[in-house]
């Protein structure tokens, strides 16, 4: 109805006022030279200048990707270099190596950054096509062909390669330059990544209740496997009639567990099956968390984790006296950027034995005075690391509604990380993990490195999952000084998973687009990580990638997952 109000800001007047104020400010701080005031007294002659023009001091162009100090996994597909340049209209890319390898010289006329193809099935009134940011729109790109990239990789293992990008005008006059170094790790990733590939299409149902995805669009969720040495991912599961959610694999890659909603939206089902090239999930493979048969009473198997040996599953449950609705803060928004806020405010950890079919509370993590969640196993199966916060109702009477992620109206909860011995299910005393507790932030989503030395966790201001401000931290397993990871991007860093050899971490981020993408970072023996490496082409530009998890199998270890349970009558 109304025009944009911005023109009424009178930009020229604002700019003028701003300029005057800035000059005054700069003068007052002694920043601008006094002789600046006399500018204009000296006359500038373009002709004289042109006659004297010679070699220029090169301007710094901005290389945005890869970042300086990046470490690439061996065999990853060629990355696309990204830079912005005020000066250049064509560029040279020179790669030099520390050894005797010949340098590589490439020329680029420059191609602007482009968005990938979109999935027309995922276009909706409630989302927008992906779009380039102001910076991205000004970005130039170069992607080495596979032979050049292979040469770069082969010669940058022992010592870093130096990449120099130089911008030219009028063909040969250099005006700008910047350099980075990059390394190829000797550590292979060594395993494919299993992830969920989803549309971002929030939907307001008939009663106005917002859902993250309309039931009619659930079939658009895909589950995919990616070998980072290949150009594309392989879809292993799609066209599910009901939702499938969090998944986990045992450390040996032999057992797979996944939440699968059953008939009547029963969210109390969990599939545990052997990992095979052609997997089939049938009714007999399903665990019914709601053993009393009452759908949705105690569900939930929130963040269920299969034990390293595949014998157990640890998960979060409401406990015997609470209903699901009394234990979770859930708010969905029509804003597709961050369309859901979802975290437990109560709950206990329980462990499930596949051998006995019994589920039992885990002493030390079963206190109803706390919300205990996000349980994960240490690689030896001896400890459970989990997030704990003082229990509270999901909502209080009169509580203001939240209108977006991180809205102050959200129920406030800050988790601390704890560790409790599993002790064959007998549990023990839970101890806070120093560096990941009592720090005024919400510490959550822990993952223990395969060597048992480190915990990588998410820190944010409130709650957990899909937090815009989420950042990855690393802390020694026994506790200690946490370190904010170098790989963190500007927006949302979470859903991380260690590679089986412990040298790589995959995580999700919205750094480049509201449509979440996957990144890798290398972690050395001392827990030092490197700038984020994008996993290219994981999905369409208007679909999101989340819950990535390394699977300890060959790159093509899963061909398909056939689910025969979701539509079975109960």
């Amino acid at each position, binding site marked *: *109805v*109304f*025009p944009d*109000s*911005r023109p*009424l*800001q*009178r930009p020229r007047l*604002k*700019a003028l*006022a*701003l*300029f005057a*104020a*800035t000059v005054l*400010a*700069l003068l007052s*701080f*002694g*920043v*601008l*030279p006094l*002789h*600046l005031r006399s*500018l*204009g007294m*000296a*006359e*500038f*002659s*373009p002709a*004289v*200048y042109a006659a*004297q*023009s010679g070699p*220029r*001091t*090169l*301007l*710094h162009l*901005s290389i*945005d990707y890869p970042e300086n100090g990046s470490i690439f996994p061996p065999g990853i597909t060629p990355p696309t270099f990204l830079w*912005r*340049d*005020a*000066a250049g209209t064509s560029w040279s890319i020179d790669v030099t190596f520390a050894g005797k390898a010949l340098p590589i010289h490439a020329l680029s006329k420059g191609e602007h950054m482009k968005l990938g193809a979109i999935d027309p099935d995922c276009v909706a009134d409630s989302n927008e096509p992906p779009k380039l*940011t*102001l*910076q991205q729109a*000004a970005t130039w790109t170069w992607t080495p062909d596979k032979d050049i990239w292979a040469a770069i990789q082969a010669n940058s293992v022992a010592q870093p390669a130096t990449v120099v990008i130089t911008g030219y005008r009028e063909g040969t006059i250099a*005006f700008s330059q910047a350099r980075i170094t990059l390394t190829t790790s000797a550590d292979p990733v060594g395993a494919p990544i299993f992830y969920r590939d989803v549309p971002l299409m929030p939907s307001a149902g008939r009663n106005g209740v917002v859902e993250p995805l309309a039931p009619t669009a659930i079939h658009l969720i895909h589950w995919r496997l990616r070998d980072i040495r290949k150009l594309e991912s392989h879809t292993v599961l799609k066209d599910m009639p009901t939702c499938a959610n969090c998944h986990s694999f045992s450390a040996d890659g032999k057992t797979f567990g996944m939440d699968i909603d059953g008939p009547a939206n029963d969210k109390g089902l969990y599939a545990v099956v052997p990992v095979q090239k052609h997997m089939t999930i049938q009714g007999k493979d399903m665990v019914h968390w709601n053993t009393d048969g009452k759908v949705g009473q105690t569900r939930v198997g929130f963040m269920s984790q299969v034990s390293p040996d595949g014998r157990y599953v640890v998960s979060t449950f409401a406990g015997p006296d609470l209903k699901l609705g009394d234990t979770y803060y859930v708010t969905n928004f029509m804003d597709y950027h961050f369309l859901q806020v979802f975290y437990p405010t109560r709950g206990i950890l329980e462990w499930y034995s596949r051998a006995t079919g019994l589920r039992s509370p885990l002493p030390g993590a079963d206190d109803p005075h706390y919300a205990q969640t996000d349980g994960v196993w240490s690689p030896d199966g001896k400890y459970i690391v989990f997030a704990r916060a003082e229990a509270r109702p999901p909502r209080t009477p009169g509580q203001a509604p939240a*209108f*977006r992620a991180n*809205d*102050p109206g959200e129920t406030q909860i800050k988790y601390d990380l704890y560790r409790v011995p599993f002790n064959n299910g007998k549990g023990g005393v839970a101890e806070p993990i120093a560096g990941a507790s009592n720090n005024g932030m919400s510490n959550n989503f822990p993952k223990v490195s395969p060597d048992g030395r480190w915990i990588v966790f998410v820190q944010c201001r409130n709650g957990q999952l899909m937090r*815009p*401000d989420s950042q990855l931290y690393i802390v020694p397993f026994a506790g200690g000084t946490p370190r904010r990871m170098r790989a963190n991007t*500007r*927006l949302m860093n979470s859903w991380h998973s260690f590679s089986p050899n412990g040298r790589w971490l995959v995580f999700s981020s919205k*750094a480049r687009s509201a449509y979440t993408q996957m990144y890798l970072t290398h972690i050395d023996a001392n827990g030092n990580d490197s700038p984020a490496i994008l996993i290219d082409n994981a999905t369409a530009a208007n679909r999101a990638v989340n819950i990535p998890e390394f699977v300890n199998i060959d790159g093509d270890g899963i061909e398909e997952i056939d689910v025969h349970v979701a539509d079975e009558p109960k």
Partner: protein
Amino acid sequence: MQAMNQRHSFNLKLSRMAPLVPAALLLLGAGPLLAEATCTPPQSMKAQLQGKPTAAAFKELGVWFADQQQYACAADAFASSLQTEPDQKDAPHVAFMFGVSLYFSGDVKGATAALQEAEQLGYRDIKLHIVLATIFDSAHTTKEAEVEWRAALTFAPESSAALDGLSNDLILDGDFNGVIAELENPRLLGQRTPQQSFNLAAAYAGTAKLDEAVNVLRDGLNTSPDSLPLANRLASLLVQINRPDEALTVLDLALAQHPDDPEVKQNMAKVMQVLGAVK
């Protein structure tokens, strides 16, 4: 409902709006009659507006007038809607539209009160705060404007309009650290407008962090190569930190794109003077 009650006196409204209304129309009579005379509803809505029109009909009429950019008429219609049914479910939105209509019709004071009323009624939208902030900026009440820009940012943390506006005001208030805190948010990397780069660099310069200021301007210029303010400011700072050679290249590029810009010429002259190139 103070603003709305004020607004419901059509005579009062029209007297306030006199400069916007042709004198000939003022002679036509009292407020409502005048409103009818100047604000002609579409033929398609006349039936709805006969007798005792409903609040919804007035609202629809307001939307129609707004679409026609007849904002005074739209404001009258929205006011009538609220007057007809003050407790209507959509009252917050109608109050917002009433406020915006007043704003676009030139009644800034009434618009301010109406928009604040809409917020109190529960209307939540970034546009409300952007309009209010713009109004406060126009009145040079930057502190109040800052509050509204910040409120807008709670809706959209990356809103260019709000970040431009807020950083402008913070610079005007000399709150350089505030500008740095707002614009160095990691979430905004890759999102900075030229205005934000300019303001952030000014804030760094204002806190004697000249290298940071240069880096921000350089990065901003790499995103917006045709920005003269960024080029000129970068050149000035490079001279200040004894890097006139680099300043020369910056200005050389700017001159190529804007050969007649006096500030570029002045800066170029200065740089060349520093370099000893101009006798």
